């Protein structure tokens, strides 16, 4: 099967400026490659500052990539211009984390949802009926048609944002922490809606989150990011059952488990240090200063490549042999 999206060697460096001179680079995303197949959810996890949001935005060219290829339905997005770019903008959508700042407070729900539809020149027979149907598919109804965003709760606003995405019938949606601002009961609701819509319309999702429980629930495959690099990629089930990279192991041992019995039995690993600054990342493997298995002379000198350790399960760590 052809992937919907293929990212190859994606890099995004932000300049660090002092007056007029550039004195360094923040390597927010540094050589990331992965594919997303039709109808699949690819989860991207990592701690704040690891570059997961930048990856999501660079893929959509909301931020221009420094280097790398982004192939969407066979076309290299980085080269698109004019009408083709418009086509891309319609078929690849994003849903943001904060439902309070992502909706225009001066527009009614109807206008918010219709604006992109008009912009892309999509023919709609009866706009009201069209919007009502969209609202119903995300769990809202016609009562909400002419209301303003401030009249809605956080969860409802995320639903409006979702209806807006649906209106354009995209192939691919970047979900950037779509439920981080919501309470658990509301979160469950939105996650289920997202899953149902995926089944119905065959969307592909890039699901970005720092919550491992949520990523496991949502994703078919996932990638773990650390300081701008993917350290492990594979089927979500496999990564949770058998995490290979020491960072993934540390992350899994650090998440609190909502079950006292399992929590007591959980394998614990000493969690030390904090993620270093991406301005001057550690040499070699970026995780080596925090890694309990780091080998001097290897891990701090040479960068490990991402290698396939078992079927479809990739890891970038010297523990798993030289490629």
């Amino acid at each position: 099967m052809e992937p919907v999206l293929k990212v190859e060697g994606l890099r995004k460096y932000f300049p660090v400026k002092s007056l007029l001179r550039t004195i360094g680079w923040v390597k927010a995303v540094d050589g990331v490659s992965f594919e997303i197949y039709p109808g699949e959810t690819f989860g991207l996890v990592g701690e704040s500052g690891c570059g997961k949001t930048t990856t999501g935005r660079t893929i959509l060219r909301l931020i221009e990539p420094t280097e790398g290829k982004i192939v969407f339905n066979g076309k290299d997005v980085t080269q698109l211009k004019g009408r083709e770019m418009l086509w891309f903008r319609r078929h690849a959508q994003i849903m943001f984390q904060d439902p309070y700042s992502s909706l225009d407070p001066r527009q009614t729900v109807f206008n918010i949802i219709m604006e992109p539809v008009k912009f892309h020149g999509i023919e709609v027979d009866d706009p009201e009926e069209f919007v009502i149907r969209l609202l119903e598919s995300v769990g809202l109804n016609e009562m909400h048609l002419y209301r303003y965003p401030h009249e809605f709760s956080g969860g409802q606003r995320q639903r409006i944002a979702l209806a807006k995405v649906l209106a354009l019938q995209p192939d691919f949606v970047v979900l950037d922490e779509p439920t981080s601002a919501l309470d658990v009961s509301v979160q469950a609701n939105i996650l289920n809606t997202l899953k149902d819509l995926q089944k119905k319309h065959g969307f592909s999702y890039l699901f970005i989150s720092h919550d491992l429980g949520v990523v496991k629930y949502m994703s078919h495959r996932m990638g773990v990011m650390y300081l701008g690099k993917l350290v492990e990629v594979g089927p979500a089930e496999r990564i949770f059952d058998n995490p290979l990279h020491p960072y993934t192991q540390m992350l899994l041992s650090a998440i609190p488990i909502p079950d006292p019995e399992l929590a007591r039995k959980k394998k614990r690993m000493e969690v030390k240090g904090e993620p270093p600054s991406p301005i001057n990342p550690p040499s070699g493997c970026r995780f080596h200063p925090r890694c309990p298995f780091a080998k001097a002379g290897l891990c701090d000198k040479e960068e490990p490549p991402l290698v396939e350790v078992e079927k479809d399960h990739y890891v970038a760590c010297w523990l798993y042999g030289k490629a």
Partner: protein
Amino acid sequence: MPEPIIEIKNLRVYFYTYAGVVKAIEDVSFNIYRGETLALVGETGCGKSVTSRALTQLIESPGRIVSGQVLYHRDDGSTVDLLKLNDEEIREIRGNEIAYIFQDPHSSLDPLYTVGYQIGEAMEVHGKVKNIKEGIGRAVNILREVLIPDPENRVRNYPHELSGGMKQRVVIGIGIANNPRLLIADEPTTALDVTVQAQILELINELKRKYNATVLLITHNLGVVAETAQRVVVMYAGKVAEIGSIDQIFHNPLHPYTVALLRAVPNPLKKIEKLESIPGTVPNLITPPKGCRFHPRCPFAEERCRKEVPELKEIEPGHWVACHRY
């Protein structure tokens, strides 16, 4: 029999806003036992933070503590009602015998003072040190205790020179500076990354053991509860829904809200086919639902639930629930 350090009785806190009276806390009663970690859980707006602040009268206008008692049993055997104390008297206890750690370490530290000064100040105002200089000297030891590397130099740092996790360690340092009997941690790790969160929770646990203190942990994260607390109070819409040990709450939840809440959380160690969500939204507390406040969202609601407020009943030893089904 465990002895209580704090007994909260029929606490009511209302906020008098232009839109109406928000009944944020309605008739809340529970005990905190000496030496335990008690978790207060619930969703946004359920009143968990307001409850914890009301303990030492930290409620600002337009909020008001309408009624209730908070009995504090001191180490020397005497008992005071914290809500009856005047400003001066409560200030002697707050930050001293009862200390707080708040959610956001960026806003709980003053950007204009060094971290050493801020820890020293907390000791100086409670007369634990003669002057600020001695306080800053003692701050080095406190920074060492909260596991900040290189404390001799860090003591001269300003908050912006520290990472989020380090700042939260300083805030904890201020909290424990006066060796509090009760440490109230209000979402202490919500602003932090998971790996840092694990370290901070470990630190709070360790300090609690070392100082033999009691911890009231306020959180919305059920994972944090399961890993750190011994007992749990579940709150919903300004009322206590259920109280029990972590095993009782997680393995035998009784209140329909607790049951639903537990099913809504994705457990990363389990395979979940479908998460269950709670229909509806949290009620407006200006005009809360009559009877049981959960009834509009409850799958088992009957006529009685719409009319009568359920009382908190003890179903098995230590396991209390406010629901008409029991």
